């Protein structure tokens, strides 16, 4: 196997027209609005990150308990707690600007097509936002989120509405809780999505056999962590085969090798999720481990491995 020196390794990728230094992106809901992690390390080492799912109005989210532990994973039912788009623009993004000098991914959610569009429109003027990631897959809210992501027509209508009011690339974040994820992905692509990101959490549940009630107040919630990696990988592979736009893969990614495996299955970049909650330095460690692992595997340019499973 070819021996590579550090300088010969290129980790940068092009995500919907924007070059990022590396393909490692902390996922929405595991990294807040970023600046708190900047107290731990220089978050500019990341490719970018996707900020906390933002809605038009502030939301407290679901009642607690919102967290359940599982083997190799966890369930959350946070339910889109966020301060609303105005506070994000007035408070969160100015804080972020002080410590992060790269384009950020704006994750948005809503309860109607109009709300998605309004939130996107308001954020579109924010210079630091590089991409929109439209969450049509949150399993933790009723009458919104996942209900858009399980029907191709509803998914397309959200993407179409967001595309009309934004000038930045739009990624559709898809739910894995569907029979055929490629149907939703193709519908989003046809509606103008510049990329697809997946998977959001699997719908899961735990029951407390001692207290004899569900562990989380909301009964069911979103299951994430290394446990879901094989399902995520399969859906990334299927989706990369089905669409022509870039795919951002996520679901249980916990190491540089996971990043490489997911890129080989078709991901242009990879989001890290639950692992950030167990180890606050996880994403940084993955960024730093990536060139080491690339050299070990004889990969000189990470772009060259994207989708080799799909060829």
């Amino acid at each position, binding site marked *: 196997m070819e021996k590579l020196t550090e300088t010969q390794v290129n980790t940068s990728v092009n995500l919907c027209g924007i070059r990022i230094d590396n393909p490692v992106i902390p996922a929405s*809901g*595991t*990294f*807040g*609005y970023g*600046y*708190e*992690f900047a*107290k*731990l390390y220089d978050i500019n080492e990341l490719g970018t990150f996707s900020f*906390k799912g933002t809605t038009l109005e*502030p939301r*407290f*989210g679901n*009642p*607690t*308990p*919102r*967290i*359940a*532990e*599982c*083997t*190799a*994973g*966890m369930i*959350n039912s*946070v339910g889109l*707690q*966020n*301060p*609303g788009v105005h*506070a994000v623009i*007035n*408070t*969160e993004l100015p804080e972020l600007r002080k410590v992060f000098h790269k384009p950020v991914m704006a994750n948005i959610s809503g309860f109607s097509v109009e709300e998605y569009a309004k939130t996107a429109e308001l954020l579109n003027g924010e210079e630091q936002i590089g991409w929109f990631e439209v969450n049509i897959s949150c399993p933790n809210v009723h009458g919104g989120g996942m209900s858009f992501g399980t029907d191709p027509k509803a998914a397309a209508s959200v993407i179409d509405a967001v595309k009309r009011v934004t000038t930045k690339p739009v990624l559709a974040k898809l739910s894995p809780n569907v029979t055929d994820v490629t149907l939703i992905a193709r519908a989003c692509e046809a509606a103008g999505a510049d990329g697809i990101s997946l998977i959001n959490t699997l719908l899961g549940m735990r029951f407390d056999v001692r207290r004899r009630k569900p*562990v*989380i107040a909301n009964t069911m919630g979103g299951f994430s*962590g*290394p446990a879901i990696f094989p399902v995520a990988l399969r859906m990334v592979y299927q989706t990369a085969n089905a669409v022509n736009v870039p795919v951002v893969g996520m679901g249980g990614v916990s190491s540089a090798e996971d990043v490489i495996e997911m890129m080989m299955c078709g991901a242009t970049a990879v989001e890290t999720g*639950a692992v*950030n*909650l*167990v*180890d*606050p*330095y996880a994403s940084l460690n993955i960024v730093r481990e990536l060139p080491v692992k690339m050299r070990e595997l004889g990969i000189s340019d990470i772009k060259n491995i994207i989708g080799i499973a799909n060829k």
Partner: protein
Amino acid sequence: MYNIRVPGARRCPAAFCCNLPFPGSFAMKQGFFTITENRKLADATFLMRLEGDTEAITAPGQFVNIKLDGFYLRRPISVFDCDGKTLSIIYKVVGRGTDALSKTEPGKELDLLTGLGNGYDIGAAGKRPLLIGGGVGVPPLYWLCKKLAAQGAMPQVVLGFNSAKDVFAVAEFRAVAGPDVKIVTVDGSYSDIGGCNKGFVTDFLPASYTYFYTCGPEPMLRAVYKATSTEGEFSFEERMGCGFGACMGCSCKTVTGYKRICKDGPVLKKEEILWKN
């Protein structure tokens, strides 16, 4: 709710909670600690002593978050005692994780996040602060008690347990607060130099105190909320995802906005509290 600012004060760095000034520091640290002791103190209750870098632990009432082999999420456990390089925790076996922790042998290294949570504000104590603990809520009060005594206060302590078999750490508290320590059991099965006190902690509160600090199960906290006459601080428990403010798993509503128990708490001032129904 999101634009209240107190100019000049340190601002709460929470992503979107209160923007209010806050006590304590948020300099979380990750590090490896070596277990030097792990022994049973009372029914299903264990003391673990650990050696490592405790620099980030700055206030009583803070907690550490422990990674255990074979479990995905860390276990948040409050600090019982702490000095330059030693950390003690007291924990109850309530599930598979704490059961595994109780079986971990001295000599083993554990991955800890330390310096988590705001902790109690010892500056507010006054001369005769009152510490009210219940069950697994007792441990964080010990280091608090020591800190208060060290700054010249004379803490009064009321500790409640279900039964004599559950009682722990009495000698430690007595060494600091002497006769001002009262042990209460629900079934009256415990008695010592402080008498046999049957009932709830709220049945045995002293008549007079300058401030109070409490930690325990929520029904007890609610009773303390009603029974106390001064200002004070409550430490809350909630199922956590990360323990350091990233996931919003342990949010609660307060008078001053949404707070994360793990980062903006676990200690809330009495006047902030909004009880869930």
